[in-house]
């Protein structure tokens, strides 16, 4: 397996992404979006697409950059640092991973559109308040050459703004994955106002009719097609959370170095030093898990499940520890909306739940490790 260190290319990519994002999409851009009630940022996505990021997992044949998962993680991590809002995970990571498994023309066309920034996707997965992708009550009934969908999907990230939506449904022969326009007749979108100020919606399917070619990969093949995309998404989200943790941690250590209390710099208080040092160690371990998941997804994706769940679990926990300590070490100012730490805390909470919380991934690890 490739080494667990960043390649030259990855380092360059990371620097370029950091340069672009800290200029064009820092936390202040999220704040400004929130203040005007927006939950997505299509202009920014165009710029990201222009930089090749929308096509990070799309084959060159489909006009993508085909840089692989580890590279996608480098980008996600920088987005995490800056709390950048984009459909990167839903579209460029997950939808792209679904589509590139299909060898047909339609998928190629869609992938070209994604890479060009002209098409965004949302994945409609959850039906309860916890991630549990194989428990599907939404039905797909065969009617004529097509299907009729009935049911509800909740907490669909980017569900308010995405052009298309991938839906896992209970079909006549098992789980089926459909690809339909988000504006389809009978499909009602109830946008949610989330704490992280990003786009999510409940999607209610009432007699939504789709054509036969909306079914991807055949009846009963839905979950097999989806699963690699979920793992790719989980790992990329873990990378985002780790970037988030790194940035929140850096804000905190900077503050420890500059803030004075009782006449001395608070960073010289040993109790805070040790807690900060411990957090650094946690971030180091989590970083290794992220690198490892990236390597496996690129080199041996079929055996990446354990690595992905370790990464998502660790990243979830690390980000939460860091933002909690971040607020506490900042004291009162950390609690004010004026200061950015709250944005990090809120995003960490949403990222903790999306695509499986700590307990879900701990369960996967336990199963893979034989207990």
């Amino acid at each position, binding site marked *: 397996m490739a080494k667990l260190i960043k390649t030259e290319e990855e380092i360059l990519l990371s620097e370029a992404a950091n340069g672009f994002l800290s200029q064009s999409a820092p936390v202040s851009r999220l704040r400004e979006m929130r203040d005007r009630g927006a939950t997505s940022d299509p202009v920014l996505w165009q710029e990201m697409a222009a930089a090749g990021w929308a096509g990070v997992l799309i084959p060159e044949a489909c006009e993508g950059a085909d840089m692989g998962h580890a590279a996608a993680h480098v980008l996600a991590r920088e987005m995490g640092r800056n709390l950048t809002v984009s459909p990167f995970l839903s579209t460029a990571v997950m939808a792209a991973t679904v589509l590139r498994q299909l060898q047909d023309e339609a998928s190629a066309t869609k992938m070209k559109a994604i890479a060009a920034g002209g098409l965004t996707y949302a994945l409609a997965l959850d039906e309860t308040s916890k991630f549990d992708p194989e428990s599907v009550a939404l039905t797909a009934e065969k009617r004529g050459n097509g299907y009729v969908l009935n049911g509800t999907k909740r*907490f669909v990230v980017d569900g308010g703004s995405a052009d298309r939506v991938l839906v896992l449904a209970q079909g006549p022969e098992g789980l089926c994955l459909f690809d339909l326009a988000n504006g389809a007749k009978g499909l009602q979108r109830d946008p949610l106002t989330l*704490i992280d100020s990003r786009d999510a919606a409940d999607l209610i399917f009432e007699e939504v009719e789709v054509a036969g070619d909306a079914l991807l990969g055949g009846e009963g093949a839905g979950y097999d097609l989806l699963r690699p995309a979920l793992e790719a998404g989980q790992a990329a989200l873990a990378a985002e959370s780790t970037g988030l943790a790194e940035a929140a941690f850096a804000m905190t250590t900077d503050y420890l170095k500059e803030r004075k209390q009782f006449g001395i710099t608070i960073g010289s208080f040993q109790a805070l030093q040790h807690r900060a040092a411990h957090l650094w160690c946690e971030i180091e371990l989590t970083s290794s898990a992220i690198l490892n998941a990236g390597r496996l997804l690129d080199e041996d994706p079929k055996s990446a499940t354990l690595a992905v769940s370790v990464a998502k679990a660790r990243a979830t926990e690390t980000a939460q520890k860091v933002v909690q300590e971040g607020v506490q070490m900042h004291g*009162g100012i950390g609690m004010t909306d004026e200061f950015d730490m709250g944005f990090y805390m809120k995003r960490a909470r949403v990222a903790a739940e999306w695509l499986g919380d700590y307990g879900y991934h701990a369960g996967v690890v336990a199963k893979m490790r034989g207990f």
Partner: protein
Amino acid sequence: MTTATDDSQNALTDFRAEIRIWLEANCPPEMRDGAAGEAAICWGGTSWEFTCEAQKTWLQRCAARGFTVPTWPKAYGGAGLSRDEDKILKQEMQAIGARSPLDSFGIWMLGPALLKFGSEEQKQHFLPPIARGEIRWCQGYSEPGAGSDLAGVQTHAADQGDTWLVNGQKIWTSYADKADWIFALLRTDREAKKHLGISFVLMDMRSKGITTRPIQLISGASPFCETFFEDVEVPKTQVVGTINRGWDVAKYLLTHEREMISNGGNVMGAGRPLGAVLSESETGLSDPILRGDAMRAEIDTLAMEMTLERYKDQAEGGQGLGDASAMLKYMGTELNKRRLELVMAAEGSAALPWEDTPASSWLRTKANSIEGGTSEVMLSIISRRILNLPG
């Protein structure tokens, strides 16, 4: 033979009967809904708008009997109740679900400080309007940049003979925008050692030169404000206790506040078992990670409740709580943060929207271990004053 204890037991039984009758006759039905929390509070003050006529009636009737501040002396608007009588009053009110007639920083904070440190004149002048809910107070301790270092007060009161001239800024003044008066720590001697040159001063919020600005928190709108003082004139008669010894008053109130916060820190209401609350979440409590954490938090919550009870019993037995209040503050607020983390985790994505979710409460708990003395300050107090560790 009738013993003294029997006599006092009989007296308490009579008292309970009397209270029951009074409550029955005087507590309006609308005020018997057992409501608690922000929306049910009557804060009083000149700008207060009663939520309904019953709220006003209930306040007035209680104030007339001294029941807004039952243990204060009658001379200052209280009912002069003993601890046991006060307990009975609270029990009987709880039994019919009676709302608290009045809550205020005047009752919780300033009152106790005035009773201990105020002059007779100050007590007579300031306490009765607090008891009647006529004057609403806010607290001006913290300053920007001072954080845990409360004694680092910079807001300056310059000596002008009979008055002070006050300049500076306070932060985290709860409800400053709604309060009539403020009690604040001011620097009255810049030459003295840090803890010595501070005075505890009362100021009318309508004074010329005082302005306020609300603070937005990560959890949303908040009662906190920034309060600015620009050439505010304050009569020297409005100093509580000795000039330059305001730190004594502040310390007394800080201990008092820690006890209150650790007592009232449970924003989940009604002491419902955490596990039961979590079990009601849509997906339940079968995940071993969540279940194990909930079990641990439940055990610690019960032990915390027993500790609050033990400390109350100690106080009734005449043992002061003293520095152990730092423990209540620290453990109570940290536990509360843990509980809300668990609630968020149990509710999953259903907890992520702002509306009708615990999200805002969860974010708000993060301040519990900062306001009223950070957890770090509490641990240092315990280390130094209880464990006698050096430095």
